[in-house]
């Protein structure tokens, strides 16, 4: 038998969480290494899921409840794997745990944030608002524990520590390195939104009212920067005339050569957010192919097609500019059939930005091999199993499915040695 009954799971997003609870419920010891101060990953940032239009926090709540009721799961947040040594059944995983500056005595009373004089860009909301340097990542965060962004603190300030009645703040915390013995490792680091500013002609970062699809999720969420009101960045105007540009970076050899799977369905979903919030709004979606494979997915497309105020146009966006006076967005579109170009004006434009596997930039784990576009090659190393979007761009259902399937491989590793 393996020396260790432990499965290390790198990443606490939906894939990692699924693998963690599933393995723990099969009586394995599980250690989750999450780089954020909270679990839930990208899913936590979503307003709703396609195609059911239900809130992702519903499923997260169940996963968290399963963890709370299972002593077999140990979680490290703000932690990153630095190296994995050894072989299947007997890995040594070294993990750097960064300080939270807040310990488990925190009760989430908010006193530290109220006392804190400094602000930081809210990364959870893609910088669309600010939080105090002492902050709770979001209102349904797990663990329900504040965190202090020391890089944003005022020099020598300890207002938070003074305000805390619970001895929960320790500004002297230092990074630690821990070593974990594990029989199997599941890699579930997920994906990052592709940097849209690299796509020159789409003018992200240059035209104020061009945002990305992940920003749109935050903009639509009740715990987002606008409490769910879809308004544009330049002047807070209600967005009644909006365009979505599909394949922003995806299916493009200069950016992401693959299809990111989720963007067509995500834009259809976001079109429905706008249509629900503003019944007099109009939505335009520019696409190459509408990729909604499957049962419900296809029905979801039909639902959008049945709305006369959602227009789907097969066309390529050649360029995006700003009307300097109104800050409206001017989109130049090439008709795919005739080749003619037209210019159209919108209140705001959402770029359907693709998925870049986290392993494109995070390849500290040396003993597995990576494909040219950054995915982990499956089966590269016995006992280490990449899941979900590290193998192939997929949605939440397929991530959960894949994470579950990786657990049986992990169990096989534990018993093989």
């Amino acid at each position, binding site marked *: 038998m393996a020396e260790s009954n432990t499965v290390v799971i790198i990443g606490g997003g*939906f894939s990692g969480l*699924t693998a963690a*609870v*599933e393995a723990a*419920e*099969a009586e394995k010891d599980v250690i989750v290494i999450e780089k954020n101060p909270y679990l839930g990953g990208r899913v936590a940032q979503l*307003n*709703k899921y396609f195609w059911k239009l*239900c*809130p992702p926090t*519903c*499923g997260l*709540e*169940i*996963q968290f*409840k*399963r963890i*709370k*009721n*299972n002593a077999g799961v140990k979680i490290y947040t703000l932690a990153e794997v630095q190296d994995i040594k050894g072989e299947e059944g007997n890995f040594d995983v070294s993990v750097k745990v960064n300080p939270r500056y807040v310990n*488990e*005595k925190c*009760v*989430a*009373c908010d006193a530290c944030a109220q006392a804190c004089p400094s602000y930081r860009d809210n990364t959870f909301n893609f910088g669309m608002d600010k939080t105090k340097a002492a902050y709770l990542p979001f*209102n*349904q965060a797990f663990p329900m524990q504040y965190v202090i962004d020391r890089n944003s603190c005022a020099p020598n300030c300890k207002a938070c520590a003074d305000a805390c009645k*619970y001895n929960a703040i320790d500004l002297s915390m230092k990074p630690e390195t821990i070593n974990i013995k594990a029989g199997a490792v599941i890699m579930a680091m997920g994906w990052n939104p592709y940097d849209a500013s690299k796509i020159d002609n789409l003018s992200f970062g240059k035209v104020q009212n061009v945002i990305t699809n992940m920003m749109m999720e935050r903009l639509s*969420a*009740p715990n987002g920067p606008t*409490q769910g009101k879809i308004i544009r960045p330049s002047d807070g105007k209600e967005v009644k005339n909006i365009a979505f540009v599909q394949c922003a970076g995806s299916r493009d050899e200069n950016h992401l*050569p*693959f*299809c990111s799977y989720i963007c067509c369905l995500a834009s259809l979903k976001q079109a429905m957010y706008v249509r629900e919030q503003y019944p007099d709004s109009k939505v335009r979606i520019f696409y190459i192919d*509408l*990729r*909604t*494979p499957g*049962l*419900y*997915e*296809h*029905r979801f497309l*039909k639902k959008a097609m049945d709305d006369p105020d959602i227009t789907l146009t097969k066309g390529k966006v050649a360029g995006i500019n700003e009307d300097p006076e109104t800050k409206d967005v001017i989109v130049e579109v090439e008709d*795919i*059939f005739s080749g003619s170009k037209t210019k159209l004006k919108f209140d705001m434009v959402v770029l359907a930005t693709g998925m870049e596997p986290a392993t494109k930039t995070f390849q500290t784990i040396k003993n597995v091999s990576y494909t040219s*576009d950054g*995915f982990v*090659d*499956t089966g590269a190393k016995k006992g280490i199993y990449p899941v979900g979007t590290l193998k*192939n761009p997929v949605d939440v259902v397929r991530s*959960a*499915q*894949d994470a*579950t*399937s990786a657990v*049986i*491989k992990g*169990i*096989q590793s534990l018993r093989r040695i």
Partner: protein
Amino acid sequence: MEKKYGVYICKGCGIGEGVNIEKLANNVKGMVCKTHDILCSPEGINLIKEDMKNEGVNAITIAACSPRVKTEEFDFPGALIERVNLREFVVWSHEPNNEETQSLAEDYLLMGIEKIKKGDLPEPNILQDLSSTILVIGGGVSGMNAAIEAANAGYKVVLVEKEAQLGGFANRLYKKIPTGEYFNKPLIVDTDIDKLIKEVESHPDIKVYKSSKIEKTEGQPGLYDVTVSTNGGSETIKIGAIVLATGWKPYDATKLDYLGYGKSQNVVTNIEFEEIAKKGNGKILRPSDGKEAKKVAFIQCAGQRDQNHLPYCSSMCCATSLKQARYVRQNNKDAVAMVLYKDIRTPGRLELYYKEAQNDPGVMLTKAEIKGVSDAGNGNLFIEAENTLLGEKIKLEADMVVLAAGMIPTTREPQEYLDGLTLAGTKGDEAKAKYIEETPKPEFILNLSYRQGPEIPSLEGAYGFADSNFICFPYETRRTGIYAAGGVRRPMDMSEAQDDAAGAAFKAIQCIDHVSRGVAVHPRAWDITFPDPLLIRCTSCKRCTEECPFGAIDEDEKGTPFYKINRCRRCGTCMGACPERIVSFKDYSVDIIGSMIKTIESPDEETIRIIALVCENDAYPALDTAALQRKKIDPAVRFIPLRCLGGMNLVWIADALSRGLDGVLLLGCKFGENYQCHFVKGSELANYRFGKVGETLNKLQLEAERVQLMQVAIAEYDKLPDMINEYVERVKEIGPNPFKGF
């Protein structure tokens, strides 16, 4: 258990500032009651632990924060614990130091104490002689992979295949699409199905039954008796859990005559094309004259994305046609493959496969609306299409036409038949008998001997696939211990089906593990309580057997229910359904909740008091989140969590109103299509029962508006306080319940 009570009240997080703790503690009579500034601190926890050690305290009421937080701190194994949510439900959501807030805190505390008085520590119900063998039904790629994965994880596997040989559809394929990177690789590779078959057949822990069917599946997880029939003989096998991997059938191509199928021999389906390629060992010899086809047109979405045929997309056909285009191209430099599509759907890294096709000058790809397929003489065919990238109207000539026909799950026919039977049953016995006589009965797969029917029930909008309703939990079916995998679950390609099979095999293993410990499976995967009905008082009304979302309750010949406990998910729907109130869990029963409600009294005849029965999975966290944002809720309302709103028993409403409470609010999940209930239809059933509340109210001569059901999602914490407050205002307008004080 002999109980020694202890009540511990936390003063931290504003509780001490918002509530008069001394006055609150005075409500606790005849038991240890202690307060602490920060109960979750090591000192606070130690206070409780010391009492457990020295005083033998084992029934603990913790009045502090929400039970959703500080779970590690307030975990005392071996003790009965009740958390009273003074922080979120009282001080964070109400004005401090006011009579109504104080009264609220006192009511919550008394309810908590009542619950712990009535409740008891559960013991798991572990059934004997459990089997840990996994049955895999279907010997295609999904089924064989499920079998191998489970066997390699240390389990015995029984694999049942209806055909004389293993392999399923893969046997008919010429080649498959490679996985991994597509560059510098052959674009078509061997399926290696023979190797997989050999691995299965030679595996010491896999027993294969070919030419076999499941005649009957009786019992429950861990204790299934599955009768397998093979060539007239049959054998009954003990089984722990089941993987359903019976796959799919191609759509009936005779219905595609509008695309020329049946009119010309040279119009074939994608599956038939595989067989042609396989037979010719790569050479495409067309059916009509055996001539090598050098110009082949592929019509995508043949009968798919079409309300008249299959209203969905089968996901795998675009990539399949791109693969088959390679068959056309591989032997002939001048051969042409034409792919006519609505949208090319090659999601993820399959895009790179598509790119390879685009880079091949012999593969012509265009979006097109097909207008017709007609005879061009000599066995050739014309394809007329509109709105293409090659022109508005085009006419192409091809040697052969391949129709990319879709997938139909093997579960569809049985489901349609059974749904028809149910519908006929609602029209009376005569209609049912007529249906049975006149409708051809399709072949069933599982043949479950369950009260609720022999197969996995249909799911609205799943078109007969045995899929999960949940995005987060893809393996959930409504039959505990039975997990679907591969093409029977959802349209998917072979590579996805392999992984899916591994996932389903794992869930089967996990289920076996849970029943061996007497623990529920998903979502209450920690719960060792179980329903224990007092059958002596059962009137055989059958409501529990009909309403159980998981078919966990069967009936004997007299109609008396009996639980198959390993099928049960512990949602308490049966408890809510039972008019005799006889279904109880050790820590959750009609009496426990009813007694909690009875502790609430209005201080005078004018003060409004309302109870809210709340789904603990969605509405409860939404209330906590609203409190975190310090949203105010009217102090007239007392929240009582339920495992699921499906556990709501009407007697609570009748009791509450007849005792003078002014209203009852029910907070459950969204129901209907796209329902969000983790127990399938809890809030919908509550709503159905709620429809009968009118009678009770009429009897009491009370206004119907006093009782209301709201559908709330977990993310609606921003709206929920207003929804509740508006409801309270309406009750206040109606005025106090005239039964107050009686």
